[in-house]
Structures are given as C-alpha cells and as structure tokens.
C-alpha cells in the first residue's frame, strides 16, 4: 500500500508540475474604460488557452506610476498610446510588443431616458447643473471631452459646470447616480452588444476629437511569461475583436 500511495503522490506531483509549466498566470493592468469587455475577453482567454488572467482596473496614469515603482503587472492595456510608448522608451516594457487593441469612442450620456438627444443639442441649451467629465489632466477620455467642447465652441460656457471624475469609471458613476445630469463617458460603459443599455446618449462623432488610440504592451516583468504573450495574441483574434466591437470600439 505505501508503495502505491507513493506512486500516486509522485504522479500527482508530476501532473501539477506539468500543469504549472503550460498554464501560467498573467497579471493585467486594464484601463477603466475597458473593464466590461476585458472581463468577457479574459473568460474566453482562460477557456481557450488554460492560462489564467488576473485583472486590475484603474486609471492609466496611476498604473504608469505603479509600474515605474515595481508593481507586479505583466501586461498593460492602456487608455492611450502615449503611456505604453513611454514605458517602452524607459525600458519598463518589452520593445516591439506594443499594438493598438482598440480605438475608444466617447458618448455624451444621461441616466434618464430622452434627456440627451441624438445630436448633442442639449449641450447648447445648458439647462443642466453638472456636466461630468474625466479629469482631462489624467484621463484620455477627459482630454477628448474638453477637445470636443472646444470644437463645438462651448468650452468656456460649460467649464463652470464641470465635475471631474478621477477616471472614466468614477465619471460614469456621477452620471449613473443622477448627481450629474449628463457626462462624457466611454461608449463601452453604456453600450452592450451594440445597443444602449440604459438612459439616453449622443455618440460623439470621432471627428470632434483626436482618436483615442488604446495600446497594449507587455511589461518588463512579463517578458518571459507565456501567458502574457498568449494574451496579446488572443486580443488580436476574432473572438476578442468581436467582443471589443460589440462594446462600441472601432
């Protein structure tokens, strides 16, 4: 009996070893606007590859600071293209791994149905008290919102009504709770499978602001992590692309 249990224990050990070798874990830092699609993509990725993806959501600026100070992330899915490029220049990311995984679209959104019209004319009427935007200093969607208002010639008039979220998730929360009547959010936050999930929205034409290119990059820590490479590959495949599209990204 002892011999037998020894063999089965050895077998179990070997099986665990083998499993460990092919199924790795990847720690992913994900920009807040990409939260919903990434949760779906990660589930598909785990099923398809057997690897595990651990997701952390937050603002790109915060992730940058954390990564520069040794945060244990293997992959960054940023909300811009500048941060991954900067990390690469500074040697904190793997050169040549960078690519654009999505181009963000923005929506002017209100939690109440019928509040925002299809042309965004509500902005000119200015009958609201608070307009939520992401902090333009920190968040690409905030910068795009300011640029859009500037092109519409409404920036000076509406600036006093700004309330700023620290990132796009908090901006959404201000509008979702009705504390701000409307706000500029990521289209991915209010759209699922191509339709608006609640409230009313104006999808801001992409010509009104510089394209929000969102780049992914493998970080120095993930250099030899097979799961990191597999995830980057998976993001380019049809299954992932379909999910990204369904959330309104280009």
């Amino acid at each position, binding site marked *: 009996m002892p011999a037998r249990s020894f063999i089965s224990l050895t077998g179990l050990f070997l099986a665990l070893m083998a499993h460990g070798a092919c199924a790795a874990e990847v720690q992913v830092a994900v920009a807040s606007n990409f939260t919903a699609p990434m949760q779906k993509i990660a589930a598909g990725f785990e099923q398809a590859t057997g690897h595990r993806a651990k997701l952390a959501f937050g*603002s790109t600026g915060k992730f940058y600071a954390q990564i520069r100070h040794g945060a244990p992330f293997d992959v960054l899915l940023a909300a811009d293209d500048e941060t991954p490029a900067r990390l690469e220049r500074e040697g904190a990311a793997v050169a040549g791994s960078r690519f654009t995984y999505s181009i963000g679209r923005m929506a002017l959104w209100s939690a109440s149905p019928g509040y925002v019209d299809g042309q965004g004319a509500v902005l000119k009427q200015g009958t609201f008290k608070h307009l939520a935007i992401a902090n333009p200093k920190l968040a690409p969607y905030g910068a795009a919102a300011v640029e859009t208002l500037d092109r519409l010639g409404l920036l000076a008039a509406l600036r006093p009504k700004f309330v*700023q979220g620290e990132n796009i998730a*908090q901006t959404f929360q201000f509008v979702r709770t009705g504390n701000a009547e409307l706000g500029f959010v990521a289209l991915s936050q209010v759209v699922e499978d191509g339709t608006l999930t609640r409230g009313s929205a104006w999808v801001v034409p992409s010509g009104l602001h510089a394209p929000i290119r969102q780049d992914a990059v493998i970080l120095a820590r993930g250099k030899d992590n097979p799961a990191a490479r597999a995830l980057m590959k998976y993001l380019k495949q049809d299954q992932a692309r379909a999910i990204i599209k369904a959330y309104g990204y280009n």
Partner: protein
Amino acid sequence: MLSDTDWSAIRLTLELAAVTTVLLLFIGTPIAWWLARTRSAWKGAVGAVVALPIVLPPTVIGFYLLVAMGPEGPVGRLTQTLGLGGLPFTFAGLVVASVFYSMPFVVQPIQNAFEAIGERPLETAATLRASPFDTFFSVVLPLARPGYLTAGVLGFAHTVGEFGVVLMIGGNIPDKTRVVSVQIYDHVEALEYAQAHWLAAGMMAFSFVVLLLLYTLNPTGRRA
C-alpha cells in the same frame, strides 16, 4: 513651489475643517452628554453608530453618501424639496460628509471627559441650587476643557486628512471641492512629483505640529 491652485486647495481645506469642527462641537456636545449619562438600552447602538466612520472604509461612506444625496436618494429628495438643490459637488455637501466622517473624533473625547467628571460635582452643584443649565456651563464645561481641546484638534486634523469621501462626492471642482488631499492625488497621478512633494511635506509638518501641540498642552487629557 506652490501654484495658485495649490493655495486655493489649502484655503478650502482649512475652511472646510474649521466649519466642520465648529459644527461638530455644537452637535457633538448633546450627543456626548447623552452617551455619558444615559442608562438607556440604546446607548450601545447610538455609540456604535457614532463610531462607525472609524471602522468603515471611506469608500463605503462615500458611496452611500453619493447615493443618498443624489436626486433619487432620501437626503437628495429632502434637500431638493427644501429648495437647497443637490449636495454632491458642493462645499455644503463636503461639510455634511465631514461632519459625519469626523464625528467620533469629536464625540468620544468629549464623552470621555463628561464621564470622568462623575456624579459628585453635579450633585454638589444641585445641592447649591444650581439649575441644570447653570451646572452645565459653570461646572461641567470647565471640567471638560481638556476633552474639548482634544475633540477640536482631532476633529479639525481628521477633516484636513480626509480623502476618500471627498474624492467620491466632491467632483474635484477648484475653489469648491478640490481639497489638499485630492490636489496631491492629482499631482501624483499626473506625475508632477515636485508639486506633490511640496504639498505632501506641508501636510506632514502640519499634522506633526498639531499633534505635538495637543500632546504638549494637554498631556493628561483623555484622547479618543
């Protein structure tokens, strides 16, 4: 060094802390008195509610305040019926949040001071025919002075050090809700480490001096 927006954040923070502390000393006194003297079965429950902000993460308080003060929430409905408008994103909203958030730091030292006085001085005052009000102002308050000093300083300092709740209900509006802690957070996130250092070091120095003063001036006073 410090920019105009930094100074405006500092001014706003001091204003918020001052208003909150004064309000709390008034609101906290009857609560502390009741907690110190009552034999009611509710004492435990009320004491626990007052102490909640010590254990709850600011995210819980911020989230519930945002929902409660929103147009759909009970507080939001009330303020709108009263014609006061919504509280989030306003200075008044921050004051309401801070009063709640800093309450234990004011109530508990005062309550401790009241409890330390005991029955004797009150009974003596009564035998000298002092009215309850007279007793309170000429006996209780002077005896509880160390407790009030601790309460005021801790309430002020704790409001200055507030961050999570303000971040969640403030909306980061210059001159209205952008306090120092939020301003530091912005600087750090925008990688403006030099400006972040100036403000952060200033906060360190301020907090140290305040606590040093408290412990030197009031070495025997009970603390929360």
